[in-house]
């Protein structure tokens, strides 16, 4: 029932792992094993699912997703 979620990288990668922050400010340690391309850097936006970073999202797409999520959360509340 989990969904892919947008997170922002808050630490540098170390040993295939990094810490990310979700829209609520909650920190998670995620694996980078499923992510293709160069290692993400602090501040990068990532789509995360079940503890794994899956892909990068540019800041423009991230802003649009955050806006949609807020609207969705308001609709649910």
């Amino acid at each position: 029932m989990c969904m892919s979620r947008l997170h922002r990288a808050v630490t540098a990668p170390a040993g295939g792992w990094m810490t990310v922050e979700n829209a609520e400010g909650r920190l998670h340690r995620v694996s980078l094993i499923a992510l293709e391309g160069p290692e993400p850097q602090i501040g990068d936006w990532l789509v995360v699912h079940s503890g794994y970073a899956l892909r990068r999202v540019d800041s423009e797409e991230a802003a649009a997703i955050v806006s949609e999520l807020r609207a969705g959360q308001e609709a649910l509340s």
Partner: protein
Amino acid sequence: MSAGPLFARYAYPPNALGYCGPPDPKALVDAGSPDARAEDLVSVAKRFSGAWPYLELIASSNAIADPLDARVVEAYWVGSELLEGIPATSLLAAIGSHPDSGLGGAAQLREAAMAGGVAHHSFHVFAVYPWLALLQSGKREPALTVLERCRIRWGRIEAVEGENVIVRSRPLGFDGRDLVLLDERSEQACYRVDGVGFVDDLVPGDLVSLHWDWVCDRLEPGALAHLEHFTARSLQAVNATEVRG
């Protein structure tokens, strides 16, 4: 069983891992206790943004007012006749209504829904998650592990060892094209950690359901039949889609 404990026992394992739901797993345990207020359970259950649209869909499709009616909750996690007759278009609309739904990149979702997809947790795992597409594109791990741990599986207890059990169950496999259930093997799961648990007095021979590393419930033969049936149906639906990997 009432809806609260039923919802909590299946939602707790990924919540405790931090994958979905409210930040504090205790909120779910409290809201899922038999004497909790109904509004607290609703508030917590809505935070499980992947599950909630299915609960609403199952309820509305069966003229049940409350998405947290125990019959609805059981249908989503385990399966029941309530899932029959829900049109694929309604299923797609419910899934697409969530603002996160586009992030998964599940290109085969529409095809799978039309090929017999149901509003069951197994369909969400196999068709909505991005992992099947990753598996088909050659990323065997961690894709197969996530698909296996996140579906609700079933098994028979072989041994009880402290707060863990050894269970005989059929793991998910991938034959290069399709998701399949493999022959039985033994796996370890827990039924209680730090005072939190959902099933007591387990003994060898008990049939149980599992989610991630946890034993969620004992399964009566009817519930087992439903779980097997709707898991098979979801596998059939996703295996009928064109591979794009």
